[in-house]
């Protein structure tokens, strides 16, 4: 058992280190670069993408296509899917009793940014 502990712990830290190096050397996401905004959408246009297989959301004046992210969201699917096609700023800011999503979630969300809200 002692050997299992030492081998698994060492392998864990080596892989975490590798992931850190790969993550830091990877190119930045669209939102982190200076790429220009491509388009503006109205809430009516956002509402046309209201299913789990085609899910857009408007959050704080920006429009995100989060279809690819839905399976990765940690909560039960219906929690996030019910916001597809909607203005979801309130839901985003009140993840649990008035507490907003984390800065990490902000960074992740930027990866799904497709334009601004008209």
């Amino acid at each position, binding site marked *: *058992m*002692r050997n*299992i*502990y*030492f081998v*698994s*712990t060492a*392998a*864990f830290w080596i*892989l*975490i280190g590798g*992931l*850190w190096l*790969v*993550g*830091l*050397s*990877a*190119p*930045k*996401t669209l939102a982190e670069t200076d790429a220009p905004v491509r388009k503006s959408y109205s809430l009516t246009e956002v509402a046309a993408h209201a299913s789990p297989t085609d899910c857009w959301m408007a959050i704080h004046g920006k429009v995100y296509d989060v279809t*690819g992210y*839905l*399976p*990765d969201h*940690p*909560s*039960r699917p219906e*929690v996030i899917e019910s916001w597809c096609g909607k203005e979801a700023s309130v839901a985003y800011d009140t*993840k*649990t009793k008035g507490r907003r999503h*984390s*800065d*990490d*979630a902000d*960074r*992740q969300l930027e*990866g799904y940014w497709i334009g601004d809200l008209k």
Partner: protein
Amino acid sequence: MRNLAKSSAPVLSLAFVAGLAFWAYPEAGAPARQIGIVLGWIGCGMLLASLFLVLREPRLATLLGGLENMYGWHHRLGMAAYVALLAHPLLLAAASLPKSPREAWLLLSPFSESWPVWTGWLSLILLMAGLGVTFATRLRYLIRRPIHAALGLAVSIGLVHLLLLGIDEPVAPILLASFALLAWRLLREDWGVGASPYVVRSVARVSPNAVEVSLAPLGDPIAAEPGQFALVAFQSGRRFKGCREFHPFTVSSNDGAAGFRIAVKALGDCTRRIQSIEPGVPARVEGAFGDFLADPAPAPQYWIAGGIGITPFMALLRSGRLKRPTTLIYLYRSESDALFVDELHTIAANQSNVRLLHRATGDDPIDPADVLPVGEAIANGEFWLCGPPPMIDAFARFLRGRGIANRRMHFEDFGPL
């Protein structure tokens, strides 16, 4: 029956974990992510089962094949949970790697200001530290033990990590269950709230480095059978400084309503102090545990004892409930390490079905062929061994070499509980 009880601890634990994994299996997402999520739940379930298996309740221990069996599975499940929980974040990140290596790192990065990630890391680091000190045998037991107990905290923080991720079902009841298990173990067993009050009635020196302590109940006595052990915490007396924590001691005599006796050899800090214990010292007792010497087969019995390992056999001999012809082979390093030899001679002289052979072995390892009868005499026997692990290993190897099946050998080694 004995084997059925022994397998119930792993079977019940694995059924619980499998149920949890089945419930949590995500229908969508990358395979690495699906496996990562399931491993997280498997680790969580195994830690909870592992926590359950440290409860020291005599009835529960009987159902689950004994305290040693429960502790063995506590260790195995804890180790397996650790490996699963290390793989959990790595696989979640691996699932995001093809999409964006940067996102994969951000998912785990402890530098991101995210409580779900921080609690996940804290739980893993506590697990790592708790298990690490368990294997750091050079550290003193008194230092290792509380850090090992921090593993319980790691379970709770891991569950808070799930709550912060928005997964409240069925985490809240599991979190409550983990608190209940921790509180049960801490209050009832470590602090001795559920233990029975006893008092030291008398102390007899049985060798230069061992005493026999007689304990009288102050309330309902525990049911202590020969072959069983009890967990005893001695408190401070007029001159005696108590050990506070519970230590396992094998019962050397069941004295009925008057209580029971234990033999204590000076092996560590606490047991050295007990050598000078005085009558009137209060003690708390949990137990009794174990099924050594229970249900002997209808076959000639061979008891092989080393040093202080004579204790369980002494209890059965004193009870006068011997049904089968029994050969007791008692080995000790020197005459000063021998316990109860005069009393053993008296018992062997008065009980016709008891044959006694005792020998000082010196510092060299004993050759089992020197003391065991040859050929047919042992071919049909049942063997009970209690003593230092090297002696038990030597005899077990020898008996297996003579074609004795494992089911006809029973061991009681004095490992740490």
